[in-house]
């Protein structure tokens, strides 16, 4: 029992180690050149050698992503509130939102570059555009799926729409909201890197693009790993907040 518990906790690390070992082994066995497929060891060496530039690029990417993500939270929550609380707004906005979400963001970046030039603007905006949709949908779902009986109970008491939204709707949609943050933050990183690769002058995306064009595959891979690690860390951060604030919605796993 105790054994399997600790196995469960360490399982991601064990799996990672196995994959890395296997990867290293395959690369060495077939002696694949590093400009095609670098081994973990070579990537690790790049980390040490280029730790300065990598850190700087990671920091840049991180806060561009955070800016876009913050924007996505504000806009996403407001839109979700609007769409979830009014039938008319739902009917009017939802199809447009879906259509907008289906547009490949890679196609939008060049347009943003024309409008905002090379630099911060496109990165922040792409991160925002790619990540606000799940937040909107989840807030709207939380608000729209109120039990009609409960609404009746409150309306009889003279509750206004606003009362019902604030006392019931918003708390109810919080688990959906935090769930969507976890998804949105990983998407936001994708958006930033996308913009940096097509039209950036700094950040991990730019670094990878440059490294790739110079056939320095190990460095490009180091950039990939950096992005992955950052997204994972932020995901864990938000799921920690989620557990702390909306424990009532996850009672199955940590019931008292």
């Amino acid at each position, binding site marked *: 029992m105790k054994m399997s518990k600790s196995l469960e906790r360490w399982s991601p690390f064990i799996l990672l180690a196995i994959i890395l070992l296997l990867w290293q082994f395959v690369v060495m066995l077939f002696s694949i050149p590093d400009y095609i497929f670098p081994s973990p060891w070579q990537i690790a060496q790049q980390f040490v050698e280029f730790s300065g530039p990598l850190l700087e690029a990671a920091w840049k990417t991180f806060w561009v992503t955070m800016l876009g993500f913050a924007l996505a939270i504000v806009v996403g929550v407001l839109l979700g509130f609007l769409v979830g609380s009014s039938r008319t707004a739902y009917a009017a906005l939802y199809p447009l939102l879906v259509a907008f979400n289906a547009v490949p963001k890679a196609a939008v970046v060049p347009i943003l570059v024309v409008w905002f030039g090379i630099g911060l603007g496109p990165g922040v905006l792409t991160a925002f555009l790619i990540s606000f949709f799940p937040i909107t949908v989840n807030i709207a779902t939380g608000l729209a799926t109120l039990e009609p009986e409960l609404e009746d109970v409150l*309306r*009889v008491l003279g509750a206004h729409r606003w009362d019902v939204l604030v006392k019931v709707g918003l708390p109810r949609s919080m688990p959906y909201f935090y769930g969507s943050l976890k998804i949105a933050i990983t998407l936001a990183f994708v958006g930033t890197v996308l913009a940096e690769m097509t039209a950036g002058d700094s950040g991990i995306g730019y670094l990878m693009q440059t490294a790739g064009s110079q056939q320095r595959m190990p460095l490009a891979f180091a950039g990939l790993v950096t992005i992955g690690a950052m997204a994972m860390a932020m995901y864990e951060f938000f799921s920690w907040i989620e557990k702390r604030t909306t424990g009532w919605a996850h009672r199955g796993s940590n019931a008292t």
Partner: protein
Amino acid sequence: MSGGPSAGPPQAGPHPLGGSTDVPGGRGAPSPRPFVDFDKVWLAYNEDLLAQGTFAVEDISLQLQEGEFIAIVGPSGCGKSTFMKLTTGLKMPSRGSIHIGGQPVTGPLKISGMAFQAPSLLPWRTTIDNVLLPLEIVEPYRSNFKSKRREYEAKARDLLKSVGLGGYEDKFPWQLSGGMQQRASICRALVHEPKMLLLDEPFGALDAFTREELWCTLRDLQAAQKFNVILVTHDLRESVFLADTVYVMSRSPGRIVVQRQIDLPRPRDLEITYTPAFTDIVHELRGHIGAIRKVGVAVPQ
């Protein structure tokens, strides 16, 4: 559990529509002015249905005396829930008129409390906070909720204790059993001391033993506080055990086909449900429902 009148007599509260309480001699012999008065009420849910002449309920006329407990039984889809919406003022009749407490119903009636088959407690609030929710919304409690919270909380705790939920006030709903959640839901409906309690199949999802326990809880609450109850149910035994008057409704269109006075003496004990007098009434009402069914089949679709 038949405990004290925890939340005080209903007329003690400052009710927005409390005017009717000062009618002298309102209880006992047939009062000149009924508390709830449905006069030939018809309801179609929207304009189209009204134009087609499709009504959810038709020609409902009934009167409730102050403190009376009535039950409405009928097959599903007979407009029982519509009846509740009319009584609480959430829906306005298409034809006819409804007077409650001597005044025409023009909007949501704050003097009523509602509970449904699903307890629909808020999972992020403790039981006590769930019960207090109405006080955060309804006037006059709303405006002084913050300053008088302590007093209201004590009252709500007494109410919870009186239905056997003492010691569970600070638990979350998911930590309670189904029957306990339903008790809490009924407390939520009663916390603002309504003059009218509307219950829509409140015990439908419970097992038979828990259901009978809750019958007694409701019986005792009503005996202590003398509020009106309108109980919508499928269960004939439930309606006969609890109500003063049982109305049988027919299926679409919803009409009241039978009104049956239940003269069994109060207080009624669960044992009474096994007496011939009781089963005779249940049987008789069952006969009416059976008759409706047959007629329903005969009507060509």
